[in-house]
């Protein structure tokens, strides 16, 4: 049974139909990537799965439960966590408090500490700034904090919305390395990316979304090799 099943999802912003019958599924242990142009509906898909937007039609099932009418915090509690687009760190809180919020629903203190230490090992620059206001971090440091924060939630399924956005190439490689590592450690991942090249390298399967509809799906390597994807998303001519 699939961990996440999204079936025939349509979502409106007022009169604008942002998703027009999106269906996708994520299996336990997979890295699945959702790629598409600006405005295709990637973030809308993730926001709807997280319960921030109500679907007009369609169903979302996670871990055997129907979740599309749940409140966001209940969805997080069930193990479905999102690191949203644009970092969304709490600039008015310290770095440490941001990390604490990542583990908001957990009560297993020793395990939280261990996960926190592991997340900080991945990003030593975040560790050096624990007591600083998060708003004073550089953009890249904020992105590291956002990922570290999502990791301390210890999700079953982690959804990442453009984690590499605005990062230097060196750091982009680090981030993708981290994604691979947390997947190997047992976390299932749904990855939204502009950097289709890297995303298709790390993912097992991929979906291509265009103006609110899934246009293609298949094993990542297959899509990476297809002419259509190479032209539209990998910058090949």
């Amino acid at each position: 049974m699939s961990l996440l099943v999204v079936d025939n999802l349509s979502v409106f912003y007022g009169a604008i139909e942002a998703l027009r019958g999106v269906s996708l599924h994520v299996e336990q242990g997979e890295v699945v990537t959702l790629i598409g142009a600006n405005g295709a509906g990637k973030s809308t898909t993730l926001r709807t799965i997280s319960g921030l937007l109500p679907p007009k039609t369609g169903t979302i099932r996670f871990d055997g439960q129907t979740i599309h009418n749940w409140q966001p915090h209940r969805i997080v509690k069930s193990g479905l966590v999102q690191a949203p687009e644009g970092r969304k760190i709490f600039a008015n809180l310290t770095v440490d408090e941001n990390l604490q919020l990542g583990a908001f629903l957990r009560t297993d203190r020793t395990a939280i500490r261990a996960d926190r230490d592991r997340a900080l090992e991945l990003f030593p620059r975040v560790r050096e700034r624990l007591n600083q206001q998060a708003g004073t971090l550089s953009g890249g440091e904020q992105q590291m904090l956002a990922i570290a924060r999502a990791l301390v939630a210890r999700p079953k399924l982690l959804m990442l919305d453009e984690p590499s956005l605005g990062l230097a190439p060196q750091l982009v490689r680090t981030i993708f390395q981290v994604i691979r590592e947390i997947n190997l450690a047992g976390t299932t991942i749904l990855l939204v990316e502009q950097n289709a090249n890297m995303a298709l390298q790390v993912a097992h399967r991929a979906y291509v979304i265009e103006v609110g509809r899934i246009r293609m799906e298949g094993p990542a390597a297959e899509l990476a090799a297809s002419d259509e994807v190479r032209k539209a998303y990998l910058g090949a001519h």
Partner: protein
Amino acid sequence: MADFAQTLMTALAVGSLYALIALGYTMVYGILKFINFAHSDIVVLGAWLSFTMAQRLLPMLGLDPHNPATTPPLWVGEVILLASMAFCSLIGFAIERLAYKPLRKAPRLNVLITAIGVSLLLQNVGQLNFVFGPSPQKMPALLPTWELLRVSLPSANGNRDVVVGLVDVVIIVTSAVLMIALEYLVFRTKTGTAMRAVSFDIDASALMGIPVDRVVSFTFVLGSALAAAAGFLYALKYPGLNQPAHATWVLLGLKAFVAAVIGGIGNVRGAVLGGFVIAFVEQFGAFYLSSNYRDVYVFALLIAILLVRPSGLLGSTVREKV
């Protein structure tokens, strides 16, 4: 010297009241970004509930509520204070759930107009005959008229006695306890961290697993409890209670709101600072300049501060949201 000391004492007591009320405005604004016009009516409710309870309780203890010379034991005041805080919390909770929550995604103006509606509702229901009635009342004395301190200090025309009364001390100490507890809650507990997160970004907070609706409710409960405490303390200091729709209450709420703005709306410490700043300007202005213009000083200060620091004394000067 004597005048200065006496004015200082009054300013501290009045400042505590402004601060308590301002906290409610600032916390709700911090989280939902709208001005809860009905907040001052919770203060009124707190004061009138205290009056009603005192009126009923004192005869049960064999005391005449109209005789200021006989006062009940101190625990009576404490019970009334806590009961009033609890009841107002419940009302604050209900107002948020029934009136504001359905408008969470509506434009700010709709919520603002709703808040004015709730305020009018509370004022007028309060004046119904079977609620508090349309006439002013006298708050029974709950505290003995002890003088904790009387010192003779020089003043313009010879020496004058400066009296530190029990009422002022009770107001200052009770407010201080409540404000320290709030400071601890907001800055040192997980719930407080969640409140600060929600005030920064509701959606991002929801993605952390924070139950946003519960945090919002809790904020109204807290603000209303502090407002009730302010109402109770106000009634102790100024026992002549005006009817619920009277302009003095509106002015009290307005000044507390100005305190919140001066301190930097949305900022908890700013609200406390603003409360005291306002009270000092008002009291010292009234004493040393002219007491006719006491309200003018407050609003003039508001204008002056907004010109120099548009986001208030402790407000962040940069927009935090991107």
